[in-house]
């Protein structure tokens, strides 16, 4: 069939290909090691046969043809799994431990040194609407999904080392089964949340000169100065891009793994898992920081995602340019926090 196609369309390119293939076959045959030959019985198969050792040396995997309907079974040997196995058993575990425990330890240390960052002079009465209900909805859609995914993902990586000895095989398997199911399907709302956040918040998150100045002044973490910032300060813009780019690549690699062979073969899936796991634990570390500063780390920060209305004094401290812009638009802040 192959020859037939070539004969019908004898373009130069195809001819060159045939020549090249011919040459390659010729060289391969010429390179076959010569061993004491078999008793002369017609054709000498010795110099023609394909050898496993040589094939494994030449290519990443040995593939042939197969007569059963499952054409993927035509891959005979693919030793790449060993590299993936080493990553999954070694570096991934250590990166995970470092990211999870290391970040928690750093945050605890930061809390001990710096303490809760309070609103200077206490809360005021006036508030300002920072995030509308849809903004809060998409934030929590992503955040809620992320928590489920992070926990179930950590269980896939480290559950066998940490939980299995505590729970025993049966209980741990049952829990892991449900966590795996949730990981697979909660991936969809997570991806939806990331896409919504990208669409709604991308304009406010494009880095500019204000952010450079914000970072130069230490983002308000050093001393008690509050550098000017727009709706999102430099740090928040970093968090936004971590979520959009990190979350996006997690979604892409995750869906590639969820639908085997639709996107890539087994080698591709090994790569996807390496990327997925690596980015996920880095993102877990970043999100720990985000959660800390949004809750216990700073007084008044949680309001933005709880009711959406933030203390005006807090807003003036942390997002001075945004407050000025909002007040110019509406004229006055809310006199008091309205019932939601």
């Amino acid at each position, binding site marked *: 069939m192959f020859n037939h196609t070539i004969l019908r369309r004898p373009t130069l390119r195809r001819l060159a290909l045939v020549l090249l293939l011919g040459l390659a076959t010729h060289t391969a045959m010429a390179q076959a090691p010569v061993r004491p030959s078999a008793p002369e019985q017609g054709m000498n198969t010795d110099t023609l046969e394909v050898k496993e050792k040589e094939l494994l040396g030449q290519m990443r995997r040995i593939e042939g043809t197969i007569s059963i309907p499952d054409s993927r079974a035509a891959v005979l040997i693919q030793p790449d799994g060993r590299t993936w196995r080493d990553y999954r058993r070694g570096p991934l575990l250590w990166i995970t431990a470092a990211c999870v425990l290391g970040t928690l330890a750093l945050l605890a240390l930061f809390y001990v040194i710096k303490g809760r960052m309070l609103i200077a002079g206490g809360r005021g009465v006036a508030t300002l609407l920072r995030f509308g209900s849809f903004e809060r*909805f998409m934030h929590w859609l992503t955040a809620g999904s992320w928590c489920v995914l992070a926990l179930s993902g950590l269980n896939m990586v480290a559950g066998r080392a940490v939980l299995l000895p505590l729970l025993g095989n049966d209980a741990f398997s049952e829990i892991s089964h449900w966590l795996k199911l949730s990981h697979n399907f909660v991936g969809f709302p997570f991806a939806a949340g990331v896409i919504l956040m990208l669409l709604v918040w991308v304009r406010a998150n494009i880095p500019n000169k204000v952010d450079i100045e914000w970072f130069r002044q230490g983002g308000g973490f050093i001393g008690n100065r509050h550098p000017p910032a727009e709706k999102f300060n430099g740090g928040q813009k970093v968090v936004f891009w971590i979520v959009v780019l990190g979350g996006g690549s997690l979604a892409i690699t995750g869906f590639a793994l969820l639908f085997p062979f639709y996107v890539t073969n087994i080698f591709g899936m090994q790569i996807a898992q390496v990327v997925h796991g690596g980015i996920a634990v880095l993102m877990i570390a970043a999100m720990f920081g985000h959660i800390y500063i949004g809750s216990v780390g700073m007084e008044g920060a949680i309001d933005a995602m709880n009711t959406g209305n933030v203390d005006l004094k807090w807003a003036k401290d942390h997002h001075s340019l945004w407050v000025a812009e909002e007040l110019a638009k509406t004229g006055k802040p809310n006199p008091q926090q309205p019932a939601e």
Partner: protein
Amino acid sequence: MRMFLTAVVVMVALSFGAAAVLSVVQQPVAVAFATKGARVDVGE
């Protein structure tokens, strides 16, 4: 808080929705790899 609860409800709904859609799309291997015209016993 209300938006948080809404988000959780939507998250669960979307997850189950995805699971339901995928379970319809998904084929048992017996069907996927059957020869054309073969009678297939799908029971596991």
